[in-house]
């Protein structure tokens, strides 16, 4: 899938249409923010703050083709800054043993309630959640994900791989829970 608003890349940053920029990016930025903060109000504020930063500092960007990465990187830095302020940043690279492959067929995922998938995705450890959300937003190549999160490409690829494993496990658990809940309801 092509990145949105390809037409805005043909000129300099000063020529960008602010309203179009908001139109093109506020939804994916909000979804990324929601996956990071897991709170709607925080996600909305992070999205607003990102455009506020763009309004005050965006002119410093020389290369208009980097606008998308600039916006996502700014949002991610803002999130990390706030998280550090809250003194809750204690997650690290997981040393847990590799999770065994879980079989959650795509056909099952298609039929799952959107909230279940969202909860499973947002419940992942942050180091996997951020790259995986950008991966599934389908607007960033893995090179751009690496630039946005400021980690090497190899790290992005391994985190996507491990993140997917965690997601599959969470979805498998959700499917199992849902099935047992339904069985329980039938017996009641």
């Amino acid at each position, binding site marked *: 899938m092509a990145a949105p608003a390809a037409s805005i890349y043909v000129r300099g940053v000063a020529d960008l249409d602010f309203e179009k920029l908001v139109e093109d990016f506020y939804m994916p930025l909000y979804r990324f923010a929601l996956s990071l903060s897991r709170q709607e109000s925080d996600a909305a504020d992070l999205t607003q703050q990102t455009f506020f930063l763009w309004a005050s500092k965006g002119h410093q960007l020389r290369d208009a083709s980097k606008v998308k990465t600039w916006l996502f990187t700014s949002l991610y830095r803002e999130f990390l800054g706030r998280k550090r302020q809250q003194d809750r940043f204690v997650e690290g690279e997981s040393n847990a043993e590799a999770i065994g492959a879980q079989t959650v067929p795509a056909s099952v995922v298609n039929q*799952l309630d959107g909230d279940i998938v*969202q909860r499973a995705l947002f419940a992942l450890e942050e180091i996997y959640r951020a790259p995986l959300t950008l991966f599934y937003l389908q607007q960033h190549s893995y090179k751009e994900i690496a630039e946005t999160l400021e980690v090497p490409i190899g790290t992005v690829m391994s985190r996507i791989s491990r993140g997917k494993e965690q997601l599959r496990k969470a979805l498998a658990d959700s499917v199992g829970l849902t099935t047992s809940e339904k069985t329980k309801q039938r017996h009641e």
Partner: protein
Amino acid sequence: MNEQEARLILQAYRPGVDPDDPDVAAALEETARNPELARWFAEEQAFDRAIAAHLGNVPAPFGLKTRILAQLAPPAAPHRWSWAVKLAGVAALLFLLTQVVSLFRPAAPKAPVSNYAREMVSFIRLGGTLDMQSDDLGQIEEWLSKKEAPPRFVPPRLAALQPLGCRLLSFRGQTVTLICFKRDNDRLAHLFVVDRAALPQMKSGAPPVFAGVGDWMTASWVENDRVYMIAVQGDRAAVQHYLPSA
């Protein structure tokens, strides 16, 4: 390239999004030779499409785009004027500013507070749910204390109303406490409290700053390094009625 390496590469590959670099090409060739790998890759792609579709259906809050556009201006275009012209412009601007400031002093700064008022009123206009519902102000204050929300005092005339509950919002990275009260005729009154760091232009001891947002009127003031804001539907007199100084 063995099957494990191919899987690692293909797991992070989305046709049409990621470039077809030599590693991807080699991994794709491997799928042509290995039917099990091909089957796995097809399932992987279907799984990715399903998750992406779910994520793509997550809605943004109603009015978010409007709020962004209403409050922010586009970045200033970089100019290519000479230094002399820039300096002359700055000097003229400084002169103008001093004249304007002298005219309006000591009026309170309006733009940042009006932004804050507009954003907070937009939240209550959306009619979102409260984080905690109770008609007992003590319980609400206890809940807020547990959440380490900004310390607050409730103006006596608001405290005399029936509380409905509270919610935590965010403004420029600062937590905002919102407490809702029921007025007569099913109308509401809202009290917002945020750390003054969110609105540093607000001065302690200054008279309340009034800002109208549609049919809502807000009054904001500083007390103990917190910015308090009351919002009610009505005119200036309606909100003034609830001020501590009323």
